[in-house]
Structures are given as structure tokens and as C-alpha cells.
């Protein structure tokens, strides 16, 4: 007997670790195309289905729930959030085909999507016919017919032997997505720290207000090392592009969180306007980061050997603590660090804090994996500041809300973190040097 929620979280963390390990040890292929310039009819058909998916995603996420089922719309499940996410996942697979796939891959993708369209149409006709509103059903039927026609054209017009015309996208300067992302994070952090009531749009109790402020602070936990890393890498577009991967990871996990929390009109927790704007901004940042990664300057850089230096080892220890606290908060209701929380009105804040801890791991992983030793030391210094800031807050604003046992626990954890970071900053010994098994462009190492 185990809880589905805990099991799913553990399963996802295990998958993330396994995927990270495998993609680090098996060199991924390089970019051969661009989603904006499909190189074969099959690629064009895949792009068309991705556009259709994007439009459906827009209607499903921002639209009225009653358009998707007849009668009573009281829904305590989160099925619709998962349906919207599935559209996003289909778009991500489409992105792979358009950016890395050859003609044979695009044909295989188009054939599978055609099967999906047929199965979906059969499902609507024979299984959910009496629950899907008539107007929506007719519209979806027309969309299915057009999509199937385009896919069939793409499959018939493309042959696996057709030579591919590779298109290497020019991309944008990686500094643009980095600055845009940092500005967005800073804006949310400022809003939550300064005026949490404005964000939640309800009268908060003092404990809830503190929880929302911690949410704002938790954004800084990853933002400060991120900005520090960006400053250290500002002169090297190739290394800066690796931060774009971190932006992609963070923005997509934020989209997932937003979909699960939902908008208020559909029974969710987030104000409708904020919800729509946040989903749009995060998807925009994801797309911008995609172009930042593909900047021409990033293609010509070879990574040299990365030594496992003390600074990296200290950051690795921080990652370990963050994994523990991510799981700790994901499995709890936030009362461990805020004993006065009475109900779940700020449940969203606890979930965001947990996710923001995960974002710290993404940022530090990037520094450990792609950054130089100096970069790691620079980030370690800023992380000491982050620890100092958090500990100060715990003993000032948070002193009346954080239980004494948690306060002591956090103090010792912070002290250990600060000591290991100090050791990492001061010591210059290289513990072990990993020989570069491959000298591939940075873009090929980025996942």
C-alpha cells in the first residue's frame, strides 16, 4: 500500500535522474533543422499538427470548461489539466522531429499522428458522443478531417530517400532570454514579497502572508545563483546558451504547476488574468530560450575537461539538501515551516516553494556540469549570501511562525551549507579530473 502522490513524485524524480545520467553519457545529436523552416512535406505536416495542438491548448487552458463537456461541470479531478499537458507533450515531440529529425523520422511521426487522429475520432464517435457538446464535436471533426488530409499528403509526398536540406537557425543572442527570464522572476519575487495580497487577491492572515512572502523569497534562491552565473558567463555566448536549457526546464515545470493549480473560473486557485498571462509568458520564455540555445556562436565551442573541484563538490552538497527539502515540502502541507497555517488557501504557495527548490537544483546542475571552476566558486559565494538572507528572514519576520524545532534544523543545515561553501571557495585543489570523452560543441551536450 502506498500513496499515489508519493509514488508519482518518486517515480518522476527517479526518471529525471536516470534521464540526466543517460543524456550526459550518450552524446545527443546536433541540430539539423528549425521548427520555422520545415524541410520536407512530412516536416510541414508535423508543423501543421503542432500549430493545431497549440490552438487547442490555448482554448483548453484559457477557454470555458463547459465547451468540453455537456451538463454538470463540477469536476474535482485534474483530468483537464493533464489533457492540456498532453497537447503540450505532443508539441514537444513535434519540436524534436522538426529540429533533430530526418525525413524518415518525420514520416514515422506523421504516420503515428494520423493514427492518433483516427483513434481520437473513433473515441469521440463511439465512446464520448453523448458527453461532448454538439458544436464542439462538429468543430473537432472538421479539424480532424483537415489534419488527417495534411498528414496523408505529407506522408505520400515525402520519401525516406529524399535528401534533407539542413537548415541551421541563426537563433538569438542567449543574453536576451537570460535577461527576460531574470526580469520575470524578479517581478514575481518583488510582487510576492511586497504585496502578497495583490497576488492572491484575498485577505490573507499573517501566517498566510508569511507563506506567500517565503514563496517570493524562494524565487530568489534560484534567481541569485542564476544571475551570478549569467554575469560570469556573459562574455561567452556558448556557455551562456547552457543557461537557456535551465530556463527551458524551469519554464516548463512552471507551466505544469500552473495547469494543475488551474484558473479560478474553472474551479482552480489562480486569478484568471494572472493564470492566462503566466502560462503565455512561460511558454514564450521556453520558445525564446530555444532560440537562445541555437545561436550560431554556441556551435563553435569545445568544452575542456571539467575537474571535480571543491567548489563543485560544495554545490553538489547543496543540491543534495535541496532534493531532500523538495521532497519534504512536496509531501507536507507546509506546516513544518509555518505552524499557524490553518487551511489550504495558500496551498499554492507551498507547492510553488517546493517547485522553486527544484529550480535551485536545475541552476546548480548547470553550473556543476557546464561552468568553469571560477564560475562554480562565484556561484558558491552568492549562495552564501542566499543562505544569510534566508536565515535572517527566519529569525526576523518568520520568528513567530516557524516552529522552534524547524528553526534549529534549518540553522544547522544552513551552517553546514555555509561551511562547505566556504571550504569550496577557499580550497583550490582539484579532487579528480575527468578526461573529456568527447569534444563536441556545447550545444550537443545541452539537454
Amino acid at each position, binding site marked *: *500500500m502506498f500513496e*499515489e*502522490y508519493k509514488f508519482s*513524485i518518486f517515480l*518522476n524524480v527517479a*526518471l*529525471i535522474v536516470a*534521464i*540526466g545520467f543517460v*543524456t550526459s*553519457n*550518450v*552524446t*545527443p*545529436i546536433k541540430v539539423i533543422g528549425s521548427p520555422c523552416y520545415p524541410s520536407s512535406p512530412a516536416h510541414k505536416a508535423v508543423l501543421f499538427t503542432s500549430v493545431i495542438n497549440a490552438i487547442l491548448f490555448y482554448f483548453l487552458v484559457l477557454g470555458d470548461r463547459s465547451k468540453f463537456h455537456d*451538463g*454538470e461541470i463540477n469536476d*474535482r*479531478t*485534474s*483530468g*483537464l*489539466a*493533464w*489533457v492540456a499537458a*498532453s497537447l503540450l*507533450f*505532443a508539441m514537444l*515531440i513535434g519540436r*524534436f*522531429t522538426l529540429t*533533430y529529425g530526418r525525413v524518415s523520422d518525420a514520416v*514515422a*511521426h506523421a504516420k*503515428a*499522428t494520423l493514427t492518433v487522429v483516427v483513434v*481520437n475520432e473513433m*473515441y469521440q464517435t463511439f*465512446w*464520448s458522443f453523448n*458527453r461532448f457538446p454538439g458544436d464542439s464535436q462538429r468543430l473537432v471533426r472538421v479539424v480532424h478531417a483537415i489534419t488527417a488530409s495534411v498528414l496523408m499528403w505529407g506522408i505520400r509526398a515525402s520519401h525516406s530517400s529524399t535528401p534533407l536540406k539542413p537548415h541551421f537557425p541563426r537563433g538569438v543572442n542567449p543574453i536576451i532570454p537570460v535577461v527576460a527570464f531574470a526580469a520575470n522572476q524578479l517581478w514575481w519575487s518583488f510582487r510576492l514579497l511586497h504585496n502578497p495580497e495583490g497576488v492572491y487577491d484575498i485577505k490573507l492572515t499573517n501566517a498566510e502572508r508569511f507563506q506567500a512572502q517565503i514563496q517570493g523569497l524562494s524565487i530568489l534562491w534560484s534567481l541569485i545563483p542564476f544571475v551570478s552565473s549569467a554575469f560570469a558567463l556573459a562574455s561567452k555566448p556558448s556557455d551562456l546558451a547552457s543557461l537557456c536549457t535551465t530556463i*527551458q526546464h524551469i519554464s*516548463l515545470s512552471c507551466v*505544469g*504547476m*500552473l*495547469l*494543475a493549480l488551474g484558473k479560478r473560473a474553472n474551479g482552480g486557485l489562480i486569478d484568471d488574468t494572472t493564470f492566462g498571462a503566466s502560462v503565455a509568458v512561460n511558454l514564450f520564455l521556453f520558445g525564446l530560450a530555444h532560440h537562445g540555445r541555437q545561436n550560431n556562436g554556441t556551435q563553435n565551442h569545445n568544452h575542456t575537461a571539467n575537474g571535480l573541484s571543491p567548489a563543485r563538490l560544495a554545490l553538489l552538497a547543496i543540491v543534495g539538501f535541496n532534493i531532500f527539502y523538495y521532497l519534504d515540502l*512536496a509531501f*507536507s502541507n*507546509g506546516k513544518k515551516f509555518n505552524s499557524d497555517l490553518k487551511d*489550504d488557501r495558500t496551498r*499554492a504557495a*507551498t*507547492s510553488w516553494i*517546493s*517547485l522553486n527548490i527544484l529550480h535551485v537544483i536545475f541552476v546548480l546542475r548547470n553550473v556543476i556540469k557546464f561552468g568553469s571552476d571560477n564560475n562554480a566558486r562565484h556561484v558558491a559565494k552568492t549562495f552564501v549570501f542566499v543562505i544569510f538572507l534566508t536565515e535572517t528572514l527566519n529569525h526576523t519576520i518568520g520568528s513567530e511562525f516557524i516552529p522552534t524545532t524547524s528553526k534549529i534544523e534549518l540553522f544547522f543545515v544552513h551552517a553546514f551549507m555555509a561551511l562547505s561553501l566556504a571550504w569550496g571557495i577557499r580550497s583550490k585543489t582539484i*579532487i*579528480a579530473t575527468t*578526461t573529456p570523452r568527447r569534444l563536441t560543441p556545447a550545444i550537443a551536450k545541452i539537454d
Partner: protein
Amino acid sequence: MIQVFQRLQTSLEKAQPALNRLPLLLLVTFLLIEVFYGALLFSGFNYGGDAVELFYGIRSPTSSEVYTTDNHAQSILWFTLPLASLTYSARSEPAKLSRLLSHVGLIVLTMTGLLVGMGSLQNGGKLGEIRRGAKRTS
């Protein structure tokens, strides 16, 4: 400590042919997990009991809750079928599979965001307990 890291590094280099098989293995595992969840959620199969109760702890679901859960189940096909097709198409190219796997990584990260956002039923969230079904008060 130095020796441990160096040995680990050497053994990883020696195991490269075996490592090259891991992307395929992991992609197939991910697909199997997704298909399993799809089957578990679809009310047409009713595998392992009522899916809405199994996942959300809702004893007497409304028709719209069953419908949404069914839609969730079939929406899994929207990305697993193209993913399976691409995996088969690139089955002998570890580098391409590795890149495909990194896209699956993005999917898993979005799923993690969704799961944390849903939260557990005990803590005022939505996900119940598998096997026994947690009590829901609202």
C-alpha cells in the same frame, strides 16, 4: 576519494557500448509506464477498480469526472504514439535516442510541476491513495 572518482570514470568509459543501449531502454520504460497509467485511468477497461476513486479518492464521481478521466486516459496516446514511432524509427541510433530522451526529460519536468501543483489529498490537494482510496470531505 580521488581513486573512487577515477575508477568510476574509467569504468564508465569501458561501459560505453552498454551505455549506448540505455536511451532505448529508458524510452521503452517511459512508454510502458505511460501505457500502464492510460489503461489504469480508462473506465472502459476498469482495470484495478474505479479510476476516479483510485487516483482522486472520489467514491461517487459525477459523469463529468468520469468523462474527464477518460479523456485524460486517451490523451496519453496523443504523445505516446508519436514517441513510440520515433523511438522505433531511431532504434539503432543512440545519439538520436539520447536527444529524444532529453525531450522526454522536459515532459517529465512538466509532469513533476503538475503533480506538485495537484498535491496530495491529505494536504488539501487532489491526488488520493492508490489501492485504498483516501477519504474526501469535499
